[in-house]
Each structure stands twice: as C-alpha cells, then as structure tokens.
C-alpha cells in the first residue's frame, strides 16, 4: 500500500468518525502503531497474508472459499485485513454464492477505508441490480448502499429509485432500508428521497411498509403530512407487520397522534377551569362538529382506531413491542383506559433480567402517575432473594409508590424481611423505603418509627446506621410528638460506630437539646474525649452540637465548648478549622460583630425545613418513557421530546382516501397460504385486493367442507391405528431431545375398540357421536390420571 493511500484512508476514516471522539482517537492510535509494528512483525504478517493472497488468486473455488473464510475470521477477531483488499475484491465476480457473500461482508467492512479500490466493484453491483434473481438484486443494492463511499452517491440514488419500482416487494423493502443509509451519507438528497419515501409509504405490501416508515423516521420525521393518507391503512395492518417494523410504526403513530388529535384527558381539567380557552371554544364550535360540546368529549374516530388496533399488540412475544404499546397508551389514551397495559407489563417481569430492569424502571414512572393501575399486581413486585440488584431496587421503589393506607401493613411486613436480607445494600434501601412510607402515609408514621427504633437494637451496624439516618429525617418532619424516641436514640450514641449514623444522632441532640437537657452536655463531654479520632462528618456535628449547647446553656458547657473548639482549631481538615473560626467569632467574640452574635441563637437553631424523602427516579420523567434517554437519565444524541397535544384537532378529512383499501389481516386470511405466494415469489401487487378476498372465500369454503374432511379422517383412522403402533419406535428416534415418547398423552387418539364399535352410518350423526366420545374420553383420561 502506498503512502498516499494510507493518508487517504486515515482522513476518510476520520471524517466518518466525526461524532465519536473516543473511537476516532483509538483508530488514530492504531494507525500510529502500525508503522512501528511493520518493522518487526511485518515480514511474518506479510507472509501469513501472502498465502491467503495466493489462495484467493488460485482458480479453485475451494481454496478461494477457505481463504475468504480465513479473512472473515480475521475481521471477526478485529484484526486488520485491509491489505488484502485488491485480492479479495477480484472475487466479487465469483459464481459461488458463499464466496460472493463473504466478499460482500468484506467490502462493507473495508470499502470506506479504500474508496478508490472499492470503486472497482461498483460495476458488478450495477450488473447485479439487473439480475433476474430477486435475492441477487436485493443483496447488490444492500451492499451498494452499505459501502459508504461518498463518490457513488449518485449511483446509489439511481439504484434506489429503480429498486423502489421493482416487481419484488423484497427488493422494494431493501430500497426502503437503503434510503436511510444514503441520507446519512448525503443529507442534501433529502427532497429526492422524500419523493421515494412517499411512494413506498403507499406501497400495498406489508413487507415494505415497515421499512418505509423506518426511512420516514430517519429522513423526514417532521413531514407528518405524508402519513395522513396512509394512517388508517397502517393502523389496520399493524398486527401483520413484522415485530421490528411494528416498533417503528408504533413510535411514529404515537407522535402522529400527539400532533393530530386533542388530549383525551383535557376535558376533565376544562371542567374545572374553563377560562383557559374562551376563544378556542368559539373556533371549535365553528370548525369541528365533533367537539361542539366540550364537556362531552368525543374521541376522534381515527384516534379510537389507533387505540383499538394497537391493543392486540400487547400480546406480542416481543417485549419491546409490548412496552411501546404501553408507552403509546400512556401518552395518547384517555386516563380510564391506561389500565389495560398493566397486565402485559407484569408478564414481561418474567423475561430476561435486562428486560426486567428496563420494564421495572418504566413501571416506576407509570405507577407514580397512575397508582391505581398497578395496585392489583402488588405481589408481583415482591422481591426474590436472587433478583439482580437493579431489579430489587426498582421493585422496592414500586412497592413504596404503591403503598397506601389499606395495603401498608402487608408492605411493611414485606419490607421488614428485606431489611434482614443478607444483601446489606438492599437492606439499607429497604429501611429508606420504610421511611418514605412513614412520611407519606400518616396513619403508619408511628408504627414505622417504632419499627425503625426496634431495628436499632439489631447487631448489624449498617442496619442500625440506616435506621438512625431515616429516623432523624422522620423526626425532623414532625419532632413535637416523639420526645421518647429522641431519648432512646441518644442512648445509642455510644454503640453506633458508623459515621453517618453518629453524625445524625449528634445533630438530633443539638437540634432538640431542649427536650433532653440533662443528657446533652454529657454527650458533648464524651465526644470531646474522642474528638480527634472521629471522622470529619462526625467532627462537624460535634462542633454543631457544642455551638448549639452553648447557646442554650452556656453556663454548664462553656469550658467544654472552649475545649472542643481548641481541639478543632488544630484539626487536619481545613473545613473543620474554618468552621471553628466562624463559630468562635459568633459565640465568643461578640464585640467584633455584635449584630450577628445577638442573633446567634436564631442562626443556629433556626427552624429547618424538613427533608423530602423522595426517590431519585422522579427526575428522569422529563424524558419520554422507555427511551434510551429515559433509562440513562440524560438526553441521548438524536433524542426528541414527544410533542404536546395541539389545542384543537386537525381536520380529519385529510386522512380520507378515495378508495379505502380492503384491509384484511393476515391472521384471518392466511388459511390457504399456498395461494398467498406464487412460486417465484414475485407477487403482482396490483391484484392484492382481489387476491385477499379470494382467500377469504377459500377460507369459508374450507370451513363448509369440514364434515367431508372429518369423514376422510375417520376412514384413515383405522389404518392409522395399526400404523401408530409400528411407528412408535421411529418416534422415539425422531425426537431425541424429548425425554420419553410415552410421556406424551396422545391427543385425539381413539382406542381400536371404539373405532370398531363405531357404525359407519350417516355423516352428521357420526360426527356428533364422535365429539361426544372425545369429551368422555378426555374426562376418562383425567380421571385415570388422578387415580394413579
């Protein structure tokens, strides 16, 4: 490779990596390292690549394939195989499909680093685009659009435009996928691409729609007007789009609904404060007959359609789809309907650990806003001891949110077991959760406090420390009633060793010294003795305690305070020294700043606002539920907020289509799938409608033919019985992964005697008998099972 080439490569890769400093940096360092390594290992490396090169140049397919596999192995391991570029690219003309495919993989990896050489391969792709085989056409387009060489933008544009008109829906789908890639390469082509997107959005094949919406989301998410005409069709076909397509379409539809329909929950608020939009009501009265009477809000029929069509997707096996539907309901549905998503979200809690974490986090926000919908599922959030730490944390959070006066006793009992769990960190979180319950539900504040005080007698230090910290916060909220508890805590000061807990106790003593005026000076005496050995946080509180006691009771404590201040004056920590200086000036040098000293008591013992016991998750609510930004709690690149509902709905007639397409769900129409695809796979989309309705008729035919089938089955039955016995050996072999064949109850199996007894008379009566027998049989079998 010449020097020129290398510099070109570097600059190209730098351009490409404009957004990732760290990655660009790492690339750079790779490049820098290379020359050094070339000196020492170059010969060896060269040799190794030389034999691959020879294999690639040979005319035996086998050798070539082996060589390509080795090259792919190098790429997979992250080793550089860039110097083989010319040798590899030659093989793009190979007839062997696998070699071709592997060359494609290689090209996608290295083309942007060796743009000039990559251009050599373009002709092959252009030929491939005209191949009669749709798979080859599609993969040619895929690679062409994936090699990221800016010079071929115009060729790509041409290829996409042609492929968008291709006969094969698969190629059209590939074209739709390519649009986003081209747009990333050259954003200037936006307008031309929008024309193609518009066309693909209206495509009649489900296969294409998902990708078309994907392209729309990438290129022109703001051109919501392109969706109008396709809105109803997309809603109706949603169930049939593939899972990943569903996700994109759901996101798009959520945004669409937020821009086109009015807020279904707004009417409630409007009842209360109608001053809010006087002129708007007038406008609406003229424009929109649907919201004539604001008090009785009627949902736009298209809005309703969206909710109706997305509901079945809650039963998807794909957790992301379920979550996205939940999100759609959360943001678009009326408050009274949100509850239907709860059950499905709970189901996801049995999924993989990572999925659980994300779902739980989202539930936390949903539960915070709509407590009632998760109320019935309280027990699903009980913590198993082997849940991962994130899962435990979110479950605890949700339980805390869901706690109310009626269920608090069970929740507290549950929390109590968590506190004692061997996972200390979780135990500490549980104590905090108890504190939050106590502060939000006044009925149980006392019980919680007593429980926490009980915990203080445990031997475990972390438990005691956490309890003290939480009790301190609770007492601060309502100090007047709990003098006894304060006394109880003060007695603990010698036993507690965890700094935060000690600090909390000392603060409590200082703050409420009027209630324990007998103890307080004695505590200070003890603290003065061990002052130098304490942690900074504790020293700080000792100083506070000293100052507050001096203000309250200067006669008794004067000397002690002086002593503590002297110790603190020579402390290693400058914060402590500063604080001492401040306090000394405030308390003992009244002459220097009399204004302050006069108010020393007010300053030190000012009523302090009670702390809020809140969860940290709340702050993430500013981002749309379920998004990456929501999960990481910061705006990710490319994040956009959901728009707010417009004050008035858009004109619903924009969504009218002249000819409403027959929207048959594949779930109904796929009864005769053989007819669904012509062997070549090239489906004339023009006759889609006819062909769907054909199928429906077929389906009906099939059902009317039912009895005949039954008859045939019966006739076969007798032969079958004999066969089945002989088959058993084969079956055992054929299902190796099952334990034993005899574990399976055979369904619909009839014992030979029954078949013999069966008279061969009229069809209808026979059918009835049969079904009866089936039932009795199944009952028998259950009976047998239970007897065994």
């Amino acid at each position, binding site marked *: 490779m010449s020097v020129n080439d290398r510099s070109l490569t570097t600059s190209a890769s730098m351009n490409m990596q404009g957004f990732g*400093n*760290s*990655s660009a940096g790492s690339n750079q360092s790779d490049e820098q390292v290379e020359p050094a390594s070339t000196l020492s290992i170059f010969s060896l490396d060269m040799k190794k690549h030389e034999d691959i090169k020879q294999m690639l140049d040979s005319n035996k397919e086998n050798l070539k394939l082996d060589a390509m596999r080795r090259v792919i192995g190098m790429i*997979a391991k992250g080793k550089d195989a860039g110097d083989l570029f010319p040798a590899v690219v030659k093989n793009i003309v190979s007839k062997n499909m*696998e070699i071709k*495919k592997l060359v494609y993989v290689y090209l996608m*990896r290295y083309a*942007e680093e060796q743009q000039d050489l990559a251009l050599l391969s373009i002709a092959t792709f252009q030929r491939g685009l005209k191949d009669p085989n*749709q*798979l080859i056409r599609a993969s040619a387009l895929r690679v062409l659009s*994936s090699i990221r060489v800016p010079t071929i933008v115009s060729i790509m544009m041409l290829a996409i435009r042609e492929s968008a008109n291709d006969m*094969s829906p*698969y190629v059209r789908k590939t074209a739709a*996928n390519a649009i*986003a890639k081209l747009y990333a390469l050259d954003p200037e082509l936006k307008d031309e691409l929008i024309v193609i997107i518009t066309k693909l959005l209206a495509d009649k094949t489900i*296969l294409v729609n998902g990708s078309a919406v994907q392209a729309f989301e990438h290129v022109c998410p703001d051109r919501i007007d392109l969706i109008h005409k396709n809105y109803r069709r997309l809603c109706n076909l949603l169930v*049939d789009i*593939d899972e*990943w397509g569903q996700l994109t379409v759901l996101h798009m539809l959520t945004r669409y609904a937020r821009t086109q329909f009015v807020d279904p929950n707004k009417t409630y608020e409007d009842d209360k404060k109608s001053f809010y939009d006087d002129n708007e009501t007038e406008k609406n009265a003229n424009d929109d007959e649907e919201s004539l009477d604001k008090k009785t809000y009627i949902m736009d029929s298209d809005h309703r359609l969206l909710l109706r069509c997305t509901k079945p997707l809650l039963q998807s*096996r794909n*957790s*992301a789809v379920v*979550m996205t539907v939940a999100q759609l309901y959360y943001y678009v549905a009326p408050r009274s309907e949100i509850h239907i998503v709860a*059950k499905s979200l709970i189901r996801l809690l*049995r999924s993989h650990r*990572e999925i659980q*974490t994300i779902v739980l986090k989202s539930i936390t926000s949903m539960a915070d806003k709509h407590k009632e919908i998760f109320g*019935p*599922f309280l*027990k699903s959030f*009980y913590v198993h001891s*082997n849940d*991962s*730490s994130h899962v435990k944390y979110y479950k605890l959070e949700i339980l805390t949110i869901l706690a109310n006066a009626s269920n608090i006793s069970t929740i507290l009992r549950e929390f109590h077991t968590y506190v004692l769990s*061997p996972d200390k960190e979780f135990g500490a979180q549980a104590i905090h959760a108890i504190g939050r319950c106590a502060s939000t539900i006044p009925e149980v504040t006392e019980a919680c406090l007593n429980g926490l005080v009980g915990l203080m007698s445990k031997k*475990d230090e972390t*438990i005691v420390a956490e309890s003290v910290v939480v009790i301190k916060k609770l007492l601060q909220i309502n100090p007047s009633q709990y003098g006894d508890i304060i006394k109880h805590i003060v007695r603990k000061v010698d036993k507690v060793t965890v700094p935060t807990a000690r600090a909390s106790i000392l603060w409590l003593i200082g703050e409420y010294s009027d209630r324990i005026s007998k103890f307080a000076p004695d505590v200070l005496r003890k603290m003065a003795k061990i002052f130098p050995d304490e942690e900074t946080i504790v020293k700080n509180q000792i100083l506070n305690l000293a100052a507050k006691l001096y203000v309250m009771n200067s006669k008794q404590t004067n000397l002690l305070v002086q002593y503590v201040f002297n110790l603190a004056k020579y402390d290693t920590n400058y914060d402590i020294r500063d604080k001492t200086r401040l306090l000394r000036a405030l308390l003992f040098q009244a002459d220097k700043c009399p204004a302050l000293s006069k108010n020393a008591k007010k300053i030190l013992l000012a009523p302090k606002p009670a702390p809020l016991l809140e969860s940290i998750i709340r702050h993430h609510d500013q981002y749309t539920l*379920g*998004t*990456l930004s929501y999960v*990481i709690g910061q705006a*990710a*690149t490319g994040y956009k907020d959901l728009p707010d509902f417009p004050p008035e709905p858009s004109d619903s007639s924009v969504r009218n289509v002249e000819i409403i397409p027959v929207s048959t*769900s594949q*779930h*109904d129409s796929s*009864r005769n*799938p053989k007819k669904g*695809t012509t062997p070549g*796979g090239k*489906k004339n989309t023009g006759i889609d409608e006819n062909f769907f309705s054909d199928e429906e008729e077929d389906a009906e035919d099939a059902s009317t033919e039912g009895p005949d089938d039954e008859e*045939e089955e019966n006739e076969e039955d007798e032969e079958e019985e004999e066969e089945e016995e002989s088959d058993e050996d084969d079956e055992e072999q054929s299902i190796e992964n*099952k334990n034993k064949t005899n574990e*399976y109850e*055979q*369904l*619909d199996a009839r014992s030979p005697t029954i078949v013999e007894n069966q008279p061969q008379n009229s069809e209808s009566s026979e059918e009835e008998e049969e079904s009866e027998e089936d039932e009795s049989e*199944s009952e028998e079998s259950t009976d047998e*099972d*239970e007897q065994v």
Partner: protein
Amino acid sequence: MIHSLFIINGASDVFMEKHWKTVIGKSICDYFFEAQSKCANPEDVPPVIATPHHYLINIYRNSLYFVAVLTHELPPLFVLEFLHRIMDVFEDYFSECTETSLKDNYVIVYELLDEMLDSGLPLATETNILKELIKPPNIFRKMANIVTGDNTNISNTLPTSQLSNIPWRRMGVRYTNNEAYFDLIEEIDAIIDRNGVTVMNEIQGYIDCCIKLSGMPDLTLSFVNPRLLDDVSFHPCVRLKKWEGERVLSFIPPDGNFRLISYHIGSQNAISIPLYVKHNIQFREGSSGRFELTVGPKQTMGKTLEAVVIECSMPKSVLNCTLTPTQGKCTFDPVKKHLVWDIGKIESNTQAAARLPSLRGNIVLTTGQPLPESNPVLNVRFTLNQIAISGIRVQRVDMHGEKYKPFKGVKYITTVKNGRFQIRT
C-alpha cells in the same frame, strides 16, 4: 440503529466483533469493563451504560456478554430484545451458544449477523428464514462437503417465506413421520414465609412445540378451560382474532421447535403449592447451631414430586455444616457457603411422617463473629410430570389443510425456575 456488536467472554476477552457501520474501536469496551469491575455479580452489570459519545447496551447469558454499541437514541428494549434474539438464533443453529461453538462457526456467525441486521436495522430474524438462507452446520453436510467438494452453506434463492404472509414457515417441508408435540410447561413462582403462609404465588406457563408436519398444516388447539388463560402472549403465527372470539389457538406452525404461547397467571388466583418444608434453623455461638429440614408432599394430585432440590446460601459467618439426610445427597461448599440437598423423588403416598425425607445436623459458626441477623432463604426446585398446576388442559388439536393424519402428543410439566420458589425461614 445498532452500530456494532462485541462478544465478550467471562475472562473479559473480546473474541468477536461485528460492525454494521463505520468501525468503532475495541477500546469502547473499556467503559463496559469499568462498569463490570464495580459489580460483584455479573448479573448486576447495568444493562445500559452511557459513555461520552456512545451508548452500550449489554446482555449476559450463557456466561457471555453481548455488548451492542449505539450512537443515537433507540429504545433500549429494542436492542435488548434483539440481542436475545441473536442469542436464540445461535442456540438454535449450534445447539448451544458458548465461546467455543461461536469460534468454531465464526463464518456462519458472521453470515447470520450480516443477514439479521442491515446497517443496524433488523432484517430477517425468523430462524426458519435464516435456515433457508444460511444452512446450519451438521455432520452430514460436513461429510457431504468433503466428498463432493461443494462446501457452500449459502442458498442462492430468496426464501419464499420471506415474501409470504407467513414468514415463519418454510415451503415444501416433507416428513415421513408427521408428528406434533406440545409441551405445556408451567413454572411456579412463590414466596412462602416462615410460618408456611404463601406470601405470593404466580404461574408462568409456556407451550413449547416441536412440530414436524409436511406441507402447510393449519392447526387448531383448544383448551378444556381456556378462561384460565387471562394474560397470554403469542407467537406471531397465532391468529389473534380467533383467540379473541373463540378462545382457540388457530395457527400455521413454524417448522421445528418454537414457543407457541406463554401465559401468566397472576397472584390473584390462589394455587395449591405441591410441597411443604418444615424447618428449624437456629444459629448459636460455637458449634451448637441447629439445622433441621423436613420435606413432604402436599396436594400433588397423585403425582410424584421429582428432582426435588433444596438450596440455601448460608450467612458468611458459617464455617461448616455437618448434616445427614435420610434421603438423597447433601453437600456444603464452605467457600461459597452454599448448601445443596439433592433429594430426588418424593412419592406422594408416603404419608407416614417417619419416611419423609429430612435433613438434620449442626452448624459451626466462626467464633468471634456476630450471630447472623436472619435465617437463610431456602430455594426449592422440583418437577411434577403429567400435570399443569393451574389445571389447564388441552382439549384437542385439529389439523386442516393437509390430508395425512399426524401423531399428536401433549405433555404436561410443572416445574420451578431456579430461585423462583423461596421459603423464608
């Protein structure tokens, strides 16, 4: 759009990487390793990690980490679900997904990854389609390749199902023995408190199918008591409208193994717990701690409890246990403080208390350490064959669309997923 994927083994070694767009250096994984090093347990690694310019989303399964790199906003569940799907496909192709199996088949792995994502957008994720595009490795094919010298594993025609309404089924499937097996598996989730009261119980059920039927069979599966199924998720092949209307599962099945439905029966419905554990665990200073367990069947509906295992993580201060079981085998790992009692079968008719399996012995504590605050949690596992604990039964399975008469079998299993059945002591 998923930018790159790194596959990392337990020893923090990035042994495979795939980039769908511009290459991102391996060094990005350092952020992941940093987060990993903060967690004692591999399961505690946060699934989403934000770095200055990229976002890392990882899953941990089969002691491998799959780390996906993103640069833009994308729902994390989308990525997590997709990574798990990749893992599923690998498991399906190589029968297990381990470092060795991936390394042995790196070419197929690469081809699969290439086919599943097109520039970071999901393309084909149905194993049936993938298997037509890229043939899975097997011994016969390897042999044939050696003999004929034609060793490609790529098909050159587009799988017809890719275009059809039913992308999950291959065309032209042929079997000599037509069989359809349905495994109805139910997993019990339960927490039982120290007094034997059930705190919570839930059932998670699945129907896993192994369908080997020729042609385009159209199956209908009906239940004896479908109203028990309240919350169900379906394989895309199930016709939702039929379920909504008639409560029957009507579907054209994919070929081979797949999960037809999974359902969840919540804690509102009380279920009968099929076994009970009597326990008496006392920690005392020195070596006089007591440990006693007795397990007995309860409402097993005549079935035998099989593969009963009780596991227990002892507190750190436990030095050793000397325990003798009346049945099965009991081991204690003094390093991990992990006690396993493998009981095996418990016959349901051994009502005589004397014959119930029990475990007795002493616990030795490290001297000088405080006594544990609480007793350990017992994790119980067991299997009940031939019964679904919720009472769900398949009534019948009918087939339309094909002329032959298949063998149809259904199996019921009630089991416990590891760690989901806990007894607090």
